[in-house]
């Protein structure tokens, strides 16, 4: 399978994403500079974490007008697999490829720690190797992860099973106590209606090897590979 990792000025998880797909998953992968528009031959595009354009104005607000984003919108429209992690998630929201918006963390702090998230929907191309309700340990590192959407939007997300991950306790209990940033309804990750675009705040690329304390994140990438292989077979 062929992965592409987008590089914006200020991306800083691009190398980790490339490393995981190439060295851990043994897949083919290349960088896509934000001025490139050619996504031919790619099966999956990864928008990595970081601080694209210095987070100026609003997180992701400037990156979403990069040349590459037009191609990614077209790629997504045709059913291509897109995953946005952290700043990548913020860019997908600004671009309107996912609904909602990120506010500043409720406690005003930049949060950098391991959290637990619950797999709310495992019937997706990103989560097919997890069990429903499985609790995953992954790190977060962000200042704007306080997900917000209006009441009608939240209902829509619920009605269509678009909430994929929620912050929880190590045992899987959902409550405000285990919500690191104030995100509405403990939302840590959502998918679009079509099911081919995922955005999540926790970093699966930083939790894909035992040496890092958790390899729970690796199964997101492995799920994608499995799904793509099944579709191509």
């Amino acid at each position, binding site marked *: 399978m062929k992965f592409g990792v987008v590089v914006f000025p200020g991306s800083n998880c691009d190398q980790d994403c490339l490393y995981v797909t190439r060295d851990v998953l043994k897949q083919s992968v290349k960088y896509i500079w934000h001025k490139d528009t050619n996504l031919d031959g790619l099966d999956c595009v990864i928008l990595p974490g970081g601080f694209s354009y210095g987070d100026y*104005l609003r997180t992701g607000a400037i990156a979403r007008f990069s040349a590459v984003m037009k191609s990614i919108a077209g790629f997504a429209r045709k059913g291509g697999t897109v995953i946005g992690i952290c700043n990548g998630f913020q860019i997908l929201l600004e671009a309107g490829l996912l609904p909602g918006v990120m506010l*500043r963390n409720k406690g005003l702090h930049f949060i950098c720690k391991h959290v637990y998230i619950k797999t709310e929907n495992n019937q997706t191309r990103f989560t097919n190797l997890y069990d429903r309700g499985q609790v995953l340990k992954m790190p977060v590192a962000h200042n704007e992860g306080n997900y917000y959407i209006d009441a009608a939007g939240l209902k829509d997300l619920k009605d269509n099973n678009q909430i994929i991950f929620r912050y929880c306790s190590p045992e899987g209990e959902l409550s405000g106590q285990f919500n690191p940033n104030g995100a509405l309804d403990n939302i840590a990750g959502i998918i679009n209606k079509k099911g081919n675009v995922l955005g999540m705040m926790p970093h699966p690329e930083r939790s894909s090897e035992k040496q890092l304390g958790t390899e729970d994140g690796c199964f997101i990438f492995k799920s994608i590979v499995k799904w793509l292989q099944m579709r191509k077979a």
Partner: protein
Amino acid sequence: MIVEIYITLKKTVSDPQGLTVKHALESLGYKGLTDVRIGKLVIIEINFKDKKRAEKEINQMCKKLLANPIIEDYHFKIKEQ
């Protein structure tokens, strides 16, 4: 002309930064504060003679990039030089 654009969070959106500043002001002894909201001020110098045209373009800029309509409101003042 100079355009001052004010961008603020919608009333329905919580503003943790504003709330923290409110608490800080109260701890300094200021009383009677009912709300504090933090916003952004963008100052644009623009080489237009036509005010109507400037208004139209500034509105577009705000909708496209400067404000996120899901959470933010904006208004602006045009100042002749």
